């Protein structure tokens, strides 16, 4: 179980999601991808996408307007 993170700071939709998808495909099952964004729609979009794909996702608004996401890859 490894923790990965990618830099999506300041990126507009849909770039963060595409980057996350790319990173996720190179990860093993059980690995965690950490994402941080200041874009509310990006955060929402990734959460909805992860849930639809049956990944485990945790969303936390760590400060006003900053979201911290932890995505666990549960399957290939």
């Amino acid at each position: 179980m490894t923790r990965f993170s990618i830099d999506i700071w300041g990126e507009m939709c849909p770039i963060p999601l595409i980057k996350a998808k790319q990173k996720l495909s190179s990860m093993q099952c059980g690995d965690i991808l950490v994402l941080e964004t200041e874009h509310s729609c990006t955060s929402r979009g990734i959460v909805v996408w992860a849930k639809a794909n049956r990944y485990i996702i945790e969303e936390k608004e760590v400060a006003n307007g900053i979201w911290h996401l932890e995505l666990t890859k549960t399957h290939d």
Partner: protein
Amino acid sequence: MSINSAFHSQRKWNIGFILFLTLLLVLLSQISIRLTLITALGISLGFVLQKSRFCLVSALRDPILIGMTQLTRAFLLLLGISILGFALVSWGASQRNIPLSLNVFPMGVHTVVGGLLFGIGMVLAGGCSTGIIIRIGEGFAMQMLAFFGLAVGSVLGERSLKSWRYTFGEWPGIFLPDIFGWVPTLILEIIVLLTLWQLARWWQKKQLGE
């Protein structure tokens, strides 16, 4: 601990903004009630839009890009509610003989061209018109650039609309309630929206392989 303090530091800003807006509305009400109501409505709409995180770009882009149709279906729901609201207003107006002046124009080739241009622009900019304004409010510097483009584009479009319509012509305007009557039109439109809803669900299931 740091999380709570981050939120706490925002509280005085929030109270400050509420105070400022209340004072602004009180001040405006001294000048014109109409202006106050319009401002209050504008502020409320902006607040709801921002909190809803509704994104028209995402609704139209995500089915193709990542196979998600949640927002697309939300958009269809929005259309359904708008249709009912529009019907209610139009029907009420015709009952009381209030003339409605609507900015509704027939379709033409220029509609398609404009739609394509706007669509490309909004995906590149990451926001439709309201989305851009919301994100400027949230503090995205890049969206100010997009807003500049939006303003320039709107002015150019408005100025050149006549020549577009003249060059390409328009299809005759159709107002469905005039042909079928109000109730059948509403039923027809809701059926179309429900079909699109089912199509969107089917598309997501197919794309995500559920």
